[in-house]
């Protein structure tokens, strides 16, 4: 399947993050076969695709956790594919990995404290922002001083998301955040991401989001633009609204059938 050209006029905002012909190998395996992807500034971009399509690999390549063997990764037009991971992160990116990356031995509080790069102690944190987060995910407040490893699956997921949002960031990369979350929490999450993108009262700037998601309902509710991957390539890129309306396209790209979701 040839990659579908971006729809004309699709890019409204200039891309904050751009991947150009990115190839990634893991050991002897060639996983990404030339990914082209643009994440417009100030939008939520959904990255969809079947299991094994290479979504996680794409995010990890952006973070420098796996190295692109060819192609470029540009953040605000600056190539970052050769930088070490900490420097990529310091370019104001937050990342929620697929496996959540919780520090199980540390308490919830310590996990959050670490995510706040600028804070030396919790007193340095923006209390308003913290209150807002803990309001979204009350379980974290409840288990504030517990080792994070003891949390339930969903609670860990909340912590991972909260950690990425504890300070404002320019770009958020999130890998399957709704996995394991109860419906009420998914609602809260959608709410939070919308707020973050808006660059609401607390934000210094709007945050751009690149979100990997399996749940199409969530994708539709949140996404501004969308890219669909298959077999290590981006096979479709465009506006979310267009994809949401075109059931045939959904079926072709994602294997969605009406039976599989409400």
């Amino acid at each position, binding site marked *: 399947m040839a990659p579908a050209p971006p729809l004309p006029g699709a890019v409204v905002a200039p891309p904050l993050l751009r991947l150009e012909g990115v190839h990634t190998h893991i050991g002897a395996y060639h996983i990404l076969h030339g990914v082209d992807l643009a994440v417009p500034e100030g939008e939520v971009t959904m990255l969809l695709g079947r299991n094994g399509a290479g979504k996680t690999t794409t995010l990890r390549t952006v973070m420098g956790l796996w190295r692109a063997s060819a192609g470029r990764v540009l953040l605000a037009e600056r190539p970052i594919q050769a930088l070490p991971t900490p420097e990529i992160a310091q370019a104001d990116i937050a990342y929620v990995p697929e496996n959540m990356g919780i520090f199980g031995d540390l308490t919830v509080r310590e996990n959050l404290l670490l995510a706040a790069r600028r804070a030396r102690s919790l007193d340095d944190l923006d209390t308003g922002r913290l209150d807002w987060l803990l309001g979204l995910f009350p379980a974290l407040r409840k288990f504030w001083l517990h080792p994070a490893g003891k949390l339930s699956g*969903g609670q860990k997921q909340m912590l991972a998301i909260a950690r990425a949002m504890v300070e404002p960031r320019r770009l958020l990369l999130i890998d399957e955040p709704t996995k*394991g979350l109860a419906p009420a929490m998914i*609602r809260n999450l959608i709410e939070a991401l919308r707020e973050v993108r808006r660059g609401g009262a607390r934000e210094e700037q709007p945050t751009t989001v690149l979100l990997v998601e*399996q749940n199409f309902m969530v994708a539709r509710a949140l996404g501004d633009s969308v890219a669909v991957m298959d077999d290590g390539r981006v096979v479709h890129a465009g506006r979310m609204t267009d994809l949401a309306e075109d059931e045939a396209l959904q079926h072709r790209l994602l294997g969605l059938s009406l039976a599989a979701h409400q």
Partner: protein
Amino acid sequence: MLETRDLTIRFGGHTAVDRVSCAFHPGTLTAIVGPNGAGKTTYFNLISGQLGASSGQVLLDGEDLTRMAAPLRTRRGLGRAFQLTQLFPTLSVLENVRLAVQSRRGEGLRMLSVWLNHRELLDEAMAIVERVRLTRRADAPAASLPHGDQRKLEVAMLMALRPKVYLFDEPTAGMSVDEVPVILDLIRELKAAGQHTILLVEHKMDVVRELADRIVVLHNGQRVADGEPATVIASPVVQSAYLGLAMPEAA
């Protein structure tokens, strides 16, 4: 029949499962739902023996399993698929499944025969691998599978155990939409066979609505609702605490 009586576990001051009494009958599928941290996984852990109860009992066909170690419970017929995938990462997909088959057949202690000569185990394992559509990956190490395939392997190991009671903990989480039906079909088949007791933790309400004969709702470790799917879903506690619908500002 699987039964729990006043099953309770406390971690320090926190009661994660609080006096839950419930009976589950063969041929039925019960969905266990509840908010994150409600105690669903912990409840499973108590049933399958990963955790020891603070008080209460677990009974299977009248036999008290409460003090029994996990492997023995497995042999009594309690099978479990985990929420956070648990595989043998360096072993191949086929070997993961084969080990489960071997355990069920009680052949783990043979030291003087060569495993490759036990064809029947291999064939049976291969059949299961095919059923979860992992044939193409049969020889790949489990660690190299993408997340969705790992979930399928997790389920495949449970199938290989052929237990009396199946405990599924969010089997489809992180699985892409086109793969979900593979798992759901498997569960449907099990249910249709009629003699298995199936417990399913799942956050996808459409799945629950379609598959479940009965829904048990856990909240703060307690059983707060139990019954027909339609009635339970409509109940206020599920609508507000779980689905979050009663909060108008969150719509």
